[in-house]
């Protein structure tokens, strides 16, 4: 934040700078769709956080006989599934699964991918070759296919179970994205004179990399994280649609689409509700990512 050094006579010592934060907000909220995306995400986070309070029914409660496959309306706002569970409640609990998979995967892969990218970019040479070629190799596979393979292997050997299989599989699958972006920005940041100045002051390589290069690499990484959250939620839905992922009776949007898929015509709410939820959230993440990208774009700095 900018501090203003204003004395009594109203003479300011430092030129009044336009706050970065104000400029950021201005560009970010300029587009209505970005604002809309942010609202959707905030609502989703609230839903996930307060799921037990918001959900009208227990998402695992099978309900009484005759309550299965109810149409929307009445007591169950979005109807019930084959086992008589309330769709709306499961939808709200599904937000938890989606966000958990998204955020934890992003965190794990960032934790591995970002240092790899910085190290490769900073040292160059053989280290760069080894790390980046490994990332390229990982990148050859489509993300979903790789995650599927990893999930299958992890399951087979019983290393971990349930939702963690999905989280770990997706984390590994998106590491190359982080490594590449970080590698790219590191290459350009390390040419700056302040990096040379830091080395001339006796900073170690570790200090230069993680105290001086990393914070400068944040803007593109923030954008990447936001964009990838959308992709991850979509991938998680894909995996649970294919039957890999959360163990029943846990609620996941992808699995709900799969369940509803058998009642395509006679009970559309079953697959439409989670389907729309997935589409909306992915769209929202992409919009927010777009907005962040524009707002953090250094070329737009100084524009009011």
């Amino acid at each position, binding site marked *: 934040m900018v501090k203003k050094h204003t004395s009594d006579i109203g003479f300011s010592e430092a030129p009044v700078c336009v706050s970065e934060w104000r400029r950021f907000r201005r560009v970010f909220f300029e587009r209505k769709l970005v604002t809309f995306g942010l609202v959707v995400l905030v609502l989703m986070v609230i839903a996930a956080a307060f799921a037990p309070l918001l959900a009208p029914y227990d998402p695992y409660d099978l309900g009484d006989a005759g309550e299965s496959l109810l149409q929307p309306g009445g007591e169950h706002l979005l109807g019930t599934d084959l086992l008589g569970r309330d769709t709306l409640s499961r939808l709200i609990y599904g937000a938890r699964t989606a966000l958990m998979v998204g955020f934890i995967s992003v965190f794990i892969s960032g934790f591995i991918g970002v240092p790899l990218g910085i190290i490769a970019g900073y040292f160059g040479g053989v280290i760069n070759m080894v790390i980046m070629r490994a990332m390229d190799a990982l990148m050859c596979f489509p993300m979903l296919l790789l995650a599927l393979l990893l999930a299958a292997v992890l399951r087979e050997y019983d290393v971990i179970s349930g939702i963690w299989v999905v989280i770990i599989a997706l984390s590994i699958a998106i590491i190359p994205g982080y490594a590449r972006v970080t590698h790219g920005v590191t290459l350009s940041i390390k040419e700056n004179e302040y990096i040379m100045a830091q080395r001339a002051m006796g900073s170690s390589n570790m200090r230069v990399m993680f*105290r001086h290069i990393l914070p400068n690499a944040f803007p593109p990484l923030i954008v990447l994280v936001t964009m990838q959250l959308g992709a991850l939620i979509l991938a998680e839905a894909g995996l649970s649609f294919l039957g890999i992922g959360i163990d029943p009776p846990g609620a996941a949007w992808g699995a709900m689409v799969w369940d509803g898929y058998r009642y395509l015509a006679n009970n559309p709410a079953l697959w439409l509700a989670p389907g729309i939820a997935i589409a909306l959230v992915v769209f929202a993440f992409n919009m927010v990512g777009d907005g962040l990208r524009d707002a953090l774009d250094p070329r737009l700095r100084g524009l009011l």
Partner: protein
Amino acid sequence: MPSIPGSEAYSSDKEKSMAELFKVENLKTQFHTEGGVVKAVDGISYHIDEREIIGLVGESGCGKSVSQLSVMQLISTPGEIVGGEVIFEGQDLLKYKTHGPEMRSVRGAKIAMIFQEPMTSLNPVLTINQQLTEMLELHLGMSKKVARERAIELLGMVGIPSAHNRIDDYPHQFSGGMRQRVMIAMALSCSPKILIADEPTTALDVTTQAQLLELMKDMVERFKASLVIVTHNLGVVARYAQRIYIMYAGRIVEEGTTKDIFGKPRHPYTIGLLKCIPRLDEEEGRKLVPIKGLPPNLINMPPTCAFLPRCSYKIKKCSREPWPPLKNLHDQHYVSCYANTQERDK
């Protein structure tokens, strides 16, 4: 609390011990490029005495910056230091590992460097406080609080008004001249023995240049440090340096006291440099004479004197013999030239 150099009253004693502090012997740095080997620094030797200000002058690409980066072991691939010695406090710095702890404890703490571009020499995402205290914590092991106090004091010393308010500002809130002041404060924060200023004023306007040079001179006197001013501008060093080294194509072609260099220049290149800058103490109407031609390509240099194609004093011997070695003229005045330029000018 340990006594902090620079805090005590300004010492006015002008007597300088002429003890040799730092010596570079036959330093060679090469860049391995696709076009061939670039001999950026081709065997230079110089020394710095305690509390002395020296100037290293030469045009762009003559290897003056590279020589200074080599001394600090900050040359990265494709560059390589291929030979020479850098003797400081009885140790050869080139024997230290580039990233090793010994070399790191020299950089910043014993030998500090200021760079050309103040606009980009500070990390834009960290506050001045974070960047200044980092050095103090790293090299002097100060606590955060003590380091902050010291940082404020340093900022005050380099002439930043209301330093206690400005210390938490970011670099973009400072002007170029102010940022260079911060850089000076940062470079001197661990009271180094030598301050290397690599074209410290090139990117600044003329009025700020004068202020900063004056400040740098005051500060090194206060901290009892030596100063190396690297520049392409003879005018900058004229006033401050005690001795001047003139570099051309990776070698030192003339060295001497400032008086010698300006009063009795002997190398054709030095003469050329002086002819192309205006002076206040000369008759009106003298035409400024540029040096003909371009600096040589440092790849595949001929064995003869590199200045030969541009030289107006050349004699037959010049095109036959290899690059002339530095020969002593008198006291501290050395020149690397076969021709007797003094006689020709008469």
